[in-house]
């Protein structure tokens, strides 16, 4: 009886919701230049309906609330790697029929056209982005920082460092800076001594660190001279250089690449339209098109090839490839984040990191 009532309520809520928004697809993303690039590359080129972009700050809290209470208003969400996994495990996302998505121009199915193995059937490709160190031209006289070890070397390159308030990527970078081979990073991290070693490296910059938690902050910190070098999302640095002519220099060494996926929320009010939107957005052409507006690397191999051939690709006529985090030239010195590891150990490392920050 209770389930009948629940389902009736759910159905009426869904009906009401879909009437109310007239089948516009609600796409939830991160805002700023990133959402703008999705708007231009995916929404403006889509003829299946209108797209409402909604901003959020990440995390699954809101989605879980919507799904558990049966009042889902979001359709498509742009999620980070560990959320993509936990959300699918928890049943917050719908598992998608893989056959509806467009293959690459050469006929490769979408799931084989990705730069990383597909984690589950809930997700479809979005982008690759990275945590990477950068500084402003002219900050250092003489030698310029070129390696991730330089970022952790206060004596050689004096000045404050900007780092974020959560441990992702920092643990990996600290280990690479300490001499761990990139291929071994996650093996080392899986031991207690490995984590100790990472924190020992982080200790070297702790007293010289300014902590940031929003993506625009590191650019302000570096621009104002508050810090000499900072970690940042590569897209933010690229956007400042490509669109605003800032003189930021990215240190392409020891960056940590992270996945970004699109998912369909379970019980999405505009499911059919949302699916159609996802098919459109994940096609090679649209994936490549997004890079006209932001320097995040497309997840689809075929889209990457399109950009490479189309240079100068950025919308204002500049070359984009040198700002792509997943271009072949830098891949050798990049850590590809292991979201499975983070989904398992993220909470416990975060606790330790928070303790470390506050001590």
């Amino acid at each position, binding site marked *: 009886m209770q389930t009948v009532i629940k389902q009736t309520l759910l159905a009426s809520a869904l009906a009401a919701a879909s009437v109310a928004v007239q089948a516009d697809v609600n796409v939830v993303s991160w805002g700023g230049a990133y959402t703008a690039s999705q708007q231009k590359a995916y929404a403006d080129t889509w003829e299946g309906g209108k797209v409402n972009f909604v901003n959020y*700050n*990440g*995390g*699954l*809290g*809101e989605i*879980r609330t919507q799904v558990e209470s049966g009042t889902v208003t979001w359709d498509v969400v742009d999620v980070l790697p560990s959320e993509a996994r*936990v959300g*699918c*495990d*928890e*049943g917050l996302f719908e598992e998608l029929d893989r056959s509806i998505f467009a293959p690459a121009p050469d006929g490769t199915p979408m799931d084989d056209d990705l730069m990383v193995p597909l984690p589950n059937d809930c997700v479809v490709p979005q982008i690759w982005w990275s945590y990477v160190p950068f500084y402003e031209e002219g900050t250092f006289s003489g030698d310029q920082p070129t390696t991730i070890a330089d970022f952790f070397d206060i004596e050689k390159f004096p000045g404050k460092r900007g780092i974020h*308030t959560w441990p992702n990527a920092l643990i990996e970078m600290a280990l690479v800076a300490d001499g761990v081979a990139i291929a071994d990073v996650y093996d080392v991290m899986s031991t207690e001594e490995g984590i100790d070693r990472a*924190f020992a490296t982080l200790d070297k910059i702790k007293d010289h*660190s*300014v*902590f940031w*938690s929003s993506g625009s902050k590191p650019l302000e910190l570096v621009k*104002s*001279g*508050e810090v000499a070098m900072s970690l940042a999302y590569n897209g933010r640095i690229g956007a400042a250089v490509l669109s605003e002519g800032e003189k930021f220099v990215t240190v392409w060494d020891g960056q940590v690449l992270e996945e970004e996926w699109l998912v369909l929320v379970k019980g999405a009010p505009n499911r059919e339209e949302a699916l159609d939107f996802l098919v459109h957005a994940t096609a090679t052409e649209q994936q490549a098109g997004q890079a006209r507006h932001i320097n995040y690397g497309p997840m689809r191999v075929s889209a990457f090839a399109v950009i490479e051939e189309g240079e100068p690709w950025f919308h204002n006529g500049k070359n984009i490839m040198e700002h792509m985090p997943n271009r072949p030239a830098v891949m050798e010195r990049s850590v590809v984040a292991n979201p*499975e590891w983070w*989904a*398992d*150990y*993220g*909470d*416990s490392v*975060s*606790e*330790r990191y*928070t*303790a*470390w*920050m*506050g*001590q």
Partner: protein
Amino acid sequence: MANSEAVATPGVLLTADGTPLKVSLQKSLRRSKLRAMLLVLPPLLFLVFLFVLPIGNMLLRSIDDSLVNQVLPTTFKEFKAWDKTTDPPESLYAAFYTDITRTLEEDKLLVGKAGVRMNYDKPGWRSLIKISARKFKKVEGPPYKEAMIEIDKRWGEKEWWLSLGAMKDERTLGYFLNAVDKKYDFDKNIISVDENRKVYNLLWYRTLLVSFIVTIACLVLAYPVSYLLATLPMRFSNLLMICVLMPFWTSLLVRIVAWMIMLQQQGVVNDTLVGLGILDTENRLAMMYNFNGTVIVMTQILLPFMILPIYSVMKTIPPSFMRAAQNLGATPTLAFLRVYMPQTIPGVGAGCILVFIVAIGYYITPELVGGKDGRLIGNMVAYHMQRTLNWGLAAAMGTILLAAILILYWAYDKIVGVDNMKMG
């Protein structure tokens, strides 16, 4: 009928239609009571749905551990039979295998959810459950032990099986323990977490400390301002009142950003000090993105909550009292201390309680200006709600906060008396 009864009992007053007056009166009273009830019904429903139910839900979540027990009932039965000193027996492996395969058939999602929950107690459970669930289909058992170790070598390690001990009951205090840097061992003894993972006690301490400092700072700043507001001639005090209220009406974020511009190391204050030669450029003060930043900004933001109640109380104190005290021979200081100040206590109490309670659960300011050591417990609650999805832990921390506020309120009632409090 009523009529004949009334006749039978003389002396009872009757209304025009013959019903006893008492009955008729009660009836009309009941009607007006009902009407009054109807009037308070909307706020009552509002309270129930938006306050009582969510808080009840939060309290329940903070001790609920039924999910894992729903997924692994036979495993926990076998776990209790196991002596924990020898290697886990085949029966335990078999029970786990059947529990998982049964749940997979009934509701696949429960397995994933259970894995996420188990990961809180021991990092790694999530992937272990996930890998196992995927590969259990191919297991041809019994025996299951070797097959499971084949799937993932962790199944051969005793520690994973032992960690089940902390989850074996439907109700758990585990989340509360977690919120104060403690945990259960496999036998449900309470032990401390590793030294380098202790974070919550520090945050509780810091939250109380910040709230306390902010309350005192607000009081010290607000008292003279309120006094001026209450005693200045109208045209000055109006202007001053606008100065107090203007920030109150300004967006929180705008004020926080303004403080960032003022206080950061390359900010206005530091630049001025360096420009005047008071500071070397190397020794610029760190007033932002740390503990100091949180205290300074929160003090400014919460100041009106202190000024307004104190002002409203001071406004009611007749100036003649002070004059009378001085007429009777008190010095101005003594008159202020003995006559004026005691009368402002209700306002001071209200202001302090208000500021402290708002400060103890503060979230957005510490998030933006807290940096490394200025973040509070509220930030942790939000973090667990939004990021880790560990709602049990978030609920436990919320419950502790609620309890702290209730205790504070109780203590205030004992010391000052709540009836004394004046909100304005």
